[in-house]
Every structure is written in structure tokens, then in C-alpha cells.
């Protein structure tokens, strides 16, 4: 039985994003059931293409952050600061918008990537445990965002960042898809991808086998920082402004939630981008159901926290059973 499970997980790993998705059938079935429940609760309006696109648009920002978070968690790390980095990049991008669209965009990206890189350096060279290093960054980035914005909301004056539709789907969703595809490609098709899994699976073996562990770690944290900066652009695109507090938005500060819900192991080395996307969708549908049955926004946060605990517990138990074999 466990042999079989092993085989299944191992076999599915390098088949491609679509099969990868399909093979996570349990989660997909959960997603489907939730979607059908939502459909009935909404009296038949949930599973319409319009609404689906809406949900996707709504969750694209979280989705982009979660993509970055996935690569970090694959190395057995964690980044608590992605929400704050996003806030910082958003504030920086908008405060330099006078320089023009592209320069301000690039400056925002640079800020996000360097904040992430600093996280990576602290973890890899400073040997600071990831949750401590990024907890510090959570505050530092947020503090900087406050300092730069003086606590005020900044508007996207020219509307350069505003979202637009391509083939009837918001640009936010397309960008999310592109980022996810890029991360999938990195994790499955490149040298660094195999290193990421190796470092998460067993850093000592990785090192002896010639994997540049330090560089891999710095890379994933920097990449996640970049994802946060991209998330910042999406945020501006959706809401037309940015302020430091956006880093504290419950949903966005919990970018590890969809990753663990999707089934990527917090202990590293197993999981992937495809799972995370399913995780984002599950959370999205679940939150929609809660809204539909009249749960206000705040308790949703409570539910979210509880879900993380439950899911991590589930996976931890499964993992232990495998070990006990």
C-alpha cells in the first residue's frame, strides 16, 4: 500500500504541469466538491465563466506570492515576510512612478528581489533560522514601507498599472499564470530546480554531491522576493493604490497557506507548483463559500488559520505513517 503510494508520488513528479495537477486527484476532488457546493449555495451563479474568472482575479495576488513561497518551502524554509515585501515594493513602485512606467516597475522589482536576497543571505550565510530571518524582514520591510509612504496611501496617478483584459480574462490572471509557469519550468526543467528539491530533501547529501547550497538558497528567497514585487504590481493593478498596511492583510500575509493546503511538505523536498495552484483555488472557493453563507471577512481568518493547522496535521500524520511502515 505504502509502496504503491511511493510509486504514485514519484511517478507523477516529472510528467508535466497538467498531469501533475490531475494526479493530485484527492485535492482536485475536494476542489470539485467545494465548487459544486458553492454553485448550489450561490443559486447557480458560481460555476459560470464570469464568476470563475472573478475568483481567479481575486486570488491572483495570493497566487503569485504562493508561487514564490512554494520554492522556499521546497528547500525546507519559510518566508513570513512576503506580504511585507509586497507592501514595500508597492509603495516604492508608486512613489517613484514619476520616473515613468518601466523604470518604476523595475525599481519595484529590484526592491523586492533584494529584500528576498537579504533573507536568503541571512539564512544561507548568517545561519539564521528561516522563520527568524524572515520575521525580522517582515518588520524591516513594513517599517521601510511606512517610512517611505509616511503612512499614507499612494495612488497610481497615471493608471499605468491598471489591469486590462486579454481574451476576456484579466491581465492579473495572465501574469499569475506566467509566473507560475516560469516557476514550474525552473523547478522541473532546470538544474536549479533539481537542486531545490535536493537541498530540501537532504542538505548534507546535496552539499557532498556538489550542489551549491548557498547559491540555491539565496536564489529561492530572491525569487520569492521578486514574486512579492510582482504581487505588488498586481495589487496596484487591481486597487489602483497602495499603502503599507496591505502587507498585513490577513490573506496576503499567509502565503504559506495555499502551499501547505496543496500538499507541499513543510519539511522540504516534496511538492510543487501545481499543488500550490490547487491549494490557492481550494482556499479561494472555500472563502467564497464562507462569503456566500454570510460569514463576514474577519472570522474567515480564523477558519484559514484552523485549516492550515488541520492540513499540516494531516500531512504530518501521513508522513509518519509512511516512516513507520
Amino acid at each position, binding site marked *: 500500500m505504502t509502496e504503491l503510494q511511493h510509486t504514485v508520488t514519484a511517478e507523477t513528479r516529472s510528467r508535466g504541469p497538467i498531469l501533475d495537477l490531475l494526479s493530485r486527484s484527492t485535492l482536485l476532488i475536494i476542489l470539485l466538491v467545494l465548487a459544486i457546493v458553492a454553485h448550489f449555495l450561490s443559486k447557480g451563479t458560481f460555476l459560470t465563466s464570469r464568476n470563475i474568472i472573478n475568483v481567479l482575479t481575486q486570488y491572483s495576488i495570493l497566487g503569485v506570492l504562493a508561487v514564490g513561497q512554494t520554492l522556499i518551502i521546497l528547500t525546507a524554509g519559510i518566508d513570513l515576510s512576503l506580504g511585507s515585501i509586497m507592501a514595500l515594493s508597492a509603495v516604492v513602485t508608486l512613489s517613484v512612478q514619476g520616473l515613468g512606467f518601466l523604470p518604476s516597475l523595475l525599481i519595484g522589482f529590484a526592491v523586492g528581489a533584494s529584500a528576498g536576497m537579504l533573507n536568503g543571505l541571512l539564512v544561507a550565510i548568517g545561519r539564521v533560522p528561516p522563520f527568524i530571518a524572515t520575521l525580522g524582514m517582515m518588520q524591516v520591510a513594513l*517599517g521601510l514601507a*511606512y*517610512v517611505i509612504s509616511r503612512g499614507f496611501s499612494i495612488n497610481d496617478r497615471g493608471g499605468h498599472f491598471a489591469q486590462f483584459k486579454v481574451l476576456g480574462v484579466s491581465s492579473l490572471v495572465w501574469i499569475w499564470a506566467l509566473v507560475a509557469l516560469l516557476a514550474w519550468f525552473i523547478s522541473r526543467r532546470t538544474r536549479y530546480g533539481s537542486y531545490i528539491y535536493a537541498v530540501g530533501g537532504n542538505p548534507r547529501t546535496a552539499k557532498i554531491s556538489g550542489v551549491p547550497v548557498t547559491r540555491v538558497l539565496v536564489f529561492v528567497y530572491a525569487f520569492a522576493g521578486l514574486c512579492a514585487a510582482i504581487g505588488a504590481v498586481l495589487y496596484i493593478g487591481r486597487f489602483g493604490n497602495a499603502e503599507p498596511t496591505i502587507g*498585513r492583510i490577513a490573506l496576503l500575509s499567509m502565503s504559506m497557506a495555499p502551499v501547505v493546503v496543496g500538499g507541499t511538505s513543510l519539511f522540504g523536498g516534496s511538492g510543487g507548483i501545481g499543488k500550490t495552484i490547487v491549494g490557492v483555488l481550494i482556499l479561494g472557493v472555500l472563502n467564497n463559500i464562507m462569503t456566500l453563507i454570510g460569514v*463576514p471577512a474577519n472570522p474567515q481568518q480564523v477558519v484559514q*488559520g484552523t485549516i492550515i493547522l488541520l492540513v499540516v496535521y494531516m500531512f504530518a500524520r501521513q508522513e509518519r505513517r509512511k516512516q513507520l511502515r
Partner: protein
Amino acid sequence: MKKIALPDLAEVFKITPTRKRLMIDYMAWVLLVILIIIGVSLKGSLFFSVSNLTNIIEQSAIIGVLAIGQFVVVLTGGIDLSVGANMALMAMVAGLTLPLGVFGSIGATLAAGAIIGMIAGLVVAYAEIPPFIVTFAMMAICRGLALTVTKGEAVKNVNSPLQVIGFGPPHWLVWLGLAGLVWFLLTKTRTGTNIYAVGGNREAARVTGVNPKRILILVYVISGTCGAVAGILSMARYTVAMPTAGYGYEMQTIAAVVLGGISLFGGEGRFTGAIAGVIFVAMLRNILDASNANPFWAYCVIGAVLWVAVILRGLLERIRS
């Protein structure tokens, strides 16, 4: 991972294991002295004025109470990211249960804090999920509850009977009293040794008959109760409980205990060091407040202090001797 070998340093300064430990234990005190020098050079004799010192100590009290819980949790190799959110929730509980009278309210709040801590402890002990995830989720749950209970509003009690506490024992006394209690627990009782043992080598503790699960639950209950005390103090002091209060306190408490020389891997740490760490953080905020910089720099500075403290401790630890 780069190897940072410091063989010569150990030789030059004749660093024995004992001296190394002393350096780690008293890191916070040394940094505190440095900070005092900086403070004096910035503010002159004003820094030592009674009002300023009282201010610092008062500012320490709430963080200090939370840091006690954080210290005990970190001793077992865990971490409590929910202390700030828990405090915010507890302040609300204190405010909302005031109709029960002062003691009723205090009792209810302490019980609520202990329950929150116990839930976290149970999950850490039995589900074997990394503590930072458990308490991070707990943080979300507490904040969510705090926001839900009041629909995002603050709980206001302008003429709160809890202000009795404000006029009664000064907050710093509550802090030091609680600190004394926990110090006694850690150094004078069997449970104290067991907490260190579980943090130092859980398996060894288990085979010698210590029940690590019970110890783990206990430390999170202590931390949750500390959150309740901090919540009561904050309600008494500010007479309002904001659902967003205590944001970033988890980091300040972690910075304080790490500065105090505790090992994030558990088993090692002097309680007095953590107190020095708390005063350091409060004094740092005091100095930053006094300088005319944007108050939000404090976030950045304390975040950076956390990094420096962890790296510094790691370097001291790695000196070959």
C-alpha cells in the same frame, strides 16, 4: 553554507568554553551598557532623569511579560509567534468581561489565555507540527477572533475598573513579580530542569521518565497566560483594546530573549539575560522615539537587531575552543 572558522580568535583571547558561555550569557548586558552610552550621548543627563527611566521601565512591562512566555517556549526549542495577537485578544476579553467585576474579569482573561496557550501546546506536542507554523496559524486565529468579537472596532472602557490595576501595583512590578515566579519555577523546581532537558535533548528527557508532551503543553500555557496578563495590563493602561494592538510584539519579544543569550534550538538560556534583553529593546525604542526620526524606523531597527542578535550568538557559539 560558508564555513566561518574562527580558530585564531579563540586562541588570541584565550576563549575557554566557560568564557564563551559567559560571553553569550551577558551579551545583552554588554549591549545594554553600549546603548546607555549612546542614549546619554544623545540626550545627556536627560536620559537618566527619573521620568525617562520610569518611562523605559513602564514601556518594558508589557513586552517584558510577553517575553517571559516567549523565553520559556524558546527554552524548549519552540517559538511563539502568537504573543502579540494573543495579547490583543486578551485585552478585549478583559474589556468585555468587565461586567463580572475586576477579579472576575482578570480570572476570565487568565483562563482564556491559558486555553489559547493550551491549544497551541496540544497541537505542538501531539501533532508534531513545527511550532512556528502552529503559532503563526494561532496568530491568525487570535487576530481573526479579536476582529470578529468586536466587528473590527476597539473595545472601549473609559472608566475601566481595571484602571485599578493602573493605580495599584505599577505595571513593572507586575512584570517583575511574574518574572520572579517563573525564575523560581525554572531554577528551583524539578519542572524547571525538565523544561531545560526537553529543550536540550528531548529523547534523553523522555527515556529518563520526563514526559516531553506535558512539558511542551505547559510552556505554551505559560506563554498564553503571560499573554493574558499583558492583555490585562494593556487594557488597564490604555482603557481601549484595539484588535490590531500588539502588532510586531512577537518580534520584539524574540529579539529580547535572543539578545539575552537564549539558544533558538532550546535547552540554553539565562532568565536574567532575557530581562536585560527586554530593557534593551524598550530603551532602543525610547531612544528612537526621542530622536526626531520617523517613528516607523523603530520597526526596521528592531528587525535588524533581531538579525544581529541571532548572527552574533551564532558566531560566538561557533568559536572553536
